[in-house]
């Protein structure tokens, strides 16, 4: 009987610790926190959103901006051809059907993001396009399927002795 009591206590303790850890890790991020250049436009609810991180890649030996955070792709070719990455903008665009969001890029072009479909609870199909200031299309259409937490990159546009690297990550 004593063994059973000890075992039950151990079980309860383990489950309690696990539940606490899961709830701590899964705690939703605070919305509306102040910070980077575009943090004044956060999504107030917990809907799907596209977090657009605009980087400027150069070879000016400035290193990698610590605000970028963990982005191991920058250490891989062709991104490793640049030794400096600076954060130019970080914007959170809500993803809603039939409601495209437009973001102006540092080179004057516009990035448009639209939610096409939600095939799963944590996956999306979205389209992205980039237009020139004169209205001409630069990247007419890009359709991507991604899960929450995953990202894709659009890079190569020239900008101030370097290129733009646009990282689009699906977040909730």
């Amino acid at each position, binding site marked *: *009987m004593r*063994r*059973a009591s*000890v*075992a*039950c206590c*151990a*079980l309860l303790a*383990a*489950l309690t*610790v*696990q539940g606490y850890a*899961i709830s701590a*890790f899964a*705690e939703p*991020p605070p919305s509306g926190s*102040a*910070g*980077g250049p575009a943090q004044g436009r956060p999504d107030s609810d917990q809907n799907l959103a596209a977090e657009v991180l605009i980087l400027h890649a150069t070879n000016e030996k400035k290193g990698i*901006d*610590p*605000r*970028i*955070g*963990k982005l*191991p*792709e920058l*250490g891989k070719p*062709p*991104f490793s051809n640049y030794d400096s990455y600076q954060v130019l903008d970080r914007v959170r665009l809500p993803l809603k059907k039939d409601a495209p969001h437009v973001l102006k890029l540092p080179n*004057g072009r516009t990035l448009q993001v639209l939610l096409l479909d939600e095939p799963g609870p*944590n996956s999306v*199909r979205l389209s992205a396009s980039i237009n*020139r*200031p*004169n209205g001409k*299309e*630069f*990247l007419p*259409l*890009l*359709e*991507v*399927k*991604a*899960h*929450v*937490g*995953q*990202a*894709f*990159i659009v*890079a*190569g*546009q*020239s*900008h*101030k002795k370097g290129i733009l690297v646009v990282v689009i990550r*699906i977040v*909730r």
Partner: protein
Amino acid sequence: MTVSRELLMRYHDGEVSDEEARVVEAALEQEPRVLEELEAYSELGSFVRVWGEARVADSFDIADSVMQKLEPPIARVHPLWPRVATWVSLGVAIAAGSVLVVRSWSAPPVTPGAPSAMRAGQPAALALSAAAVPEVSAALEEEPKPPPATIESVDFGVNAGTVFVVSTDSSETPVVWMPDDAEPDEDDGDRSESL
């Protein structure tokens, strides 16, 4: 007068008729040897009785001792449920602990730049740490690991471009690479300066 040993024994045991008893008693009076033999039977009967009682006592002791030896194991036998519950509970606890450890390992670490920036009191550090939380939450939601993001279709228009995947230890990220050196934008002042 001769009395048989069998008759004498039956007389000793009281299992003779009246006539046989009279014969035996007459012999007892006439022959001291018969009396001695009868007394010997009595002694023998007493001995046998005592010995039998002793055997009974011994056998009782043996049984009692066996029972005493059997009783402790019986007392140690516990119901099956507590043992099963113990092992099942320990197994579940170990499994829960393992899941906790695995999940803590699978969660992406906080970006290294955030702590130093926060110590410096820079507002951008708060934004960075806040942005790291969705990554942790997303990592938990990704179990089991979903397929990587895929580019289903792309239209480069009149421009040239390539699509490839950059693989790291933790992810596979699709990349659309579009250099635009060939056609400068009309109002791209920055590029005009570089040219």
